[in-house]
């Protein structure tokens, strides 16, 4: 019983992490159709932003303030990834719309450049981020069952991001403009929407959310120039399985993969578990090529 409770929580936690890394991609790939191989590097940028923020607090601010660095780091990593995403869109991506293979290669190259840039600035070895003390330890549910605060925090953060995105996309004016452009670009342009500006903002928001993911992942994972490569495949899997272009699909896709991953890993081994999960995804996509939530729209044909 205790074991199953722990595992259920672990599955949920894995799902929340998957969702967090896939949310940004759900926008840049899901909505904008840019096969963004540099998505992992935006996660990396977010992680280094957290490291920088921590360094500022350690070096130049009183020690008692240290616990406050993390919320600020989340904001900072969003802003930094947003800015770099915006720059990337205006200087490169916008020339590649509608050319999936070119954008795949170009963003992959951008990813490599960003990796090497991080290596030149911060050095090749991993850097350490000390997580704030208020996230140490865990919630003791019953004997032998501990829910670590960090994982609870990530679950909370994901819910927050998801809600914010939902309200932005479906309930706000800029979000409606974004939807209009993604659904029927020409018509939206005719109605006076600046599609250029919408494109840049949308891509930047996707990158910014990847930054938040990177910042959160410093709590439980490594921080180095190549961490993006650890997450990029999973992120694409979630978006493809969920159905390209649907937020709800991404949510269900992440939950499905996370839970399956936990179960298979528990029953078999980590390597075999991963293989089985991929097999399930491939089989499922054979049956439903559009993913869990297919969007029916003429513009997407």
């Amino acid at each position, binding site marked *: 019983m205790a*074991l199953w409770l*722990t*595992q259920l929580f*672990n599955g949920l*936690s*894995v799902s929340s*992490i998957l969702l967090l890394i896939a949310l940004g991609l759900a926008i840049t790939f899901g909505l904008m159709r840019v096969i963004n191989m540099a998505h992992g590097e935006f996660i990396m940028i977010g992680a280094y932003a957290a490291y920088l923020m921590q360094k500022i607090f350690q070096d130049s601010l009183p020690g008692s303030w240290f616990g406050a660095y993390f919320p600020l780091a989340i904001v900072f990593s969003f802003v930094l990834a947003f800015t770099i995403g915006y720059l990337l869109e205006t200087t490169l991506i916008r020339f590649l719309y509608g050319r999936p293979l070119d954008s795949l290669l170009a963003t992959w190259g951008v990813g490599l450049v960003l*990796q*090497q840039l991080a*290596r030149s600035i911060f*050095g*090749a*070895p*991993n*850097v*350490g*981020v*000390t997580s704030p003390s208020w996230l*140490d*330890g*865990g919630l003791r549910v019953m004997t*032998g069952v*501990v829910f*670590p*605060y*960090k*994982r609870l925090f990530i679950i909370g953060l994901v819910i927050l991001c998801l809600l914010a995105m939902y309200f932005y996309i479906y309930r706000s004016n800029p979000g409606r403009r974004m939807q209009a452009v993604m659904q029927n670009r020409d018509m939206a342009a005719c109605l006076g929407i600046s599609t250029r500006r919408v494109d840049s903002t949308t891509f930047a928001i996707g990158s910014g959310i990847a930054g938040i993911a990177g910042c959160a*992942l410093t*709590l*439980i*994972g*490594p*921080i*180095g*120039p*190549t*961490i993006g*490569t*650890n*997450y990029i495949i999973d992120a694409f899997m979630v978006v493809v399985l969920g159905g390209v272009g649907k937020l709800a699909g991404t949510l269900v896709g992440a939950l499905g993969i996370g839970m399956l*991953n*936990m179960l298979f*890993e*528990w029953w078999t*081994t*980590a*390597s075999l578990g*991963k293989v089985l999960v991929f097999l399930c995804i491939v089989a499922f996509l054979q049956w439903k090529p559009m993913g869990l939530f297919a969007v029916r729209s003429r513009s997407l044909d």
Partner: protein
Amino acid sequence: MGRGWLKGSVILIALGMVLAACGSNNNNQGAASPSASSPTPSASPSESASGEASPAANDGGTVKVGVLHSLSGTMAISEVSVKDAELLAIDEINAKGGVLGKKIEPVIEDGASDWPTFAEKARKLISEDKVATVFGGWTSASRKAMLPVFEELKGLLWYPVQYEGMESSPNIFYTGATTNQQIVPAVDWLLENKGKKFYLLGSDYVFPQTANKIIKAQLKAKGGELVGEEYTPLGHTDYSTIIAKIQAAKPDVVFNTLNGDSNVAFFKQLKDAGITSKDLTTLSVSIAEEEARGIGPDILQGHLVAWNYYQTTDTPENKTFVENYKKKYGSDRVTDDPIEAGYVAVYLWAAAVEKAGSFDVDKVKAAAKGVEFNAPEGKVTIDGDNQHILKTVRIGELQADGMIKELWNSGSPVVPDPYLKTYDWAAGLSK
């Protein structure tokens, strides 16, 4: 389309010819003026790779050696520091007048964390640059990729990292530990001091798999018990399920052969699950001072490691080594076992060359037998039979400041035994 294609390919071929002509031009220039090649080590691999190749490499007062590590890609995390240590040793030797009166000139190449690239660059270093020897490699995969190249071209490789044993190439010198200088004594020590129930956790590739095969045979012979064995893909970052499995298996010891980023994830998540070094003993063979810095010392505090050298190892040579390393590369840098092994490799090669009185690979190999060096880890000696070196084994505990405190050492250097021939229980493992 047909015409455009033809035109394009003609241009392409023409371009290729021009480029080839330029390339050979460069080479000619290099041969004409060997003084153009600078003796100072250059940090950029592309610089040193371009155009310096003069066929008569060993003329003009310098001798070329190759330095081949991953300077980009996932393994750059570990290998860049080893390259730095090797360049430090080369600088020190040059400052003292070089080898056989010649200054050592490093040719730095990037293996890019890609095993075929290692083989390709090794071939380039031997055939084109005509280097006297190569220092390089980290992963067993990169060594296995380079091995046939060195054997075919009769080159010489110095490999600086602890590895899984079961190998002894006539063209490779191994300055890191083989299994009986790290893993086997560590398991013995754990059985004696920490308990019988072992859980083996490793990354899914050749080193952990082979190491665990040896550990399982050893446990069986010495009355230990295996309660679990688990491999995770390289770059795996979620250990919650594995930690639950470990908790369910209740081992006395987790023997950890994870490599790279996975260690960070495993130890961070272990701490979050409320498990400290007091609740569970772990011993790692891939975490040294450098890795500890990236994981966070507060997370690793109290966990055990096994190596041959720590930055805190108390010898006069080590004091100078750490001082010089920090002076050259920054006071925030740390030294660790593979870094030291890379540094030692350069000195051992230089000593063997001096003894042989020649840069010829066969003569150096013959002379290397019994060559001694007062290394930072203590005195090391080259074993002439298997070309490994005699090293002292040390088990240490990670401290809050990221340094490692030695708990136990083997007293004297251990004779390398890559095939574990002197251990009865290991019979049949090398098959």
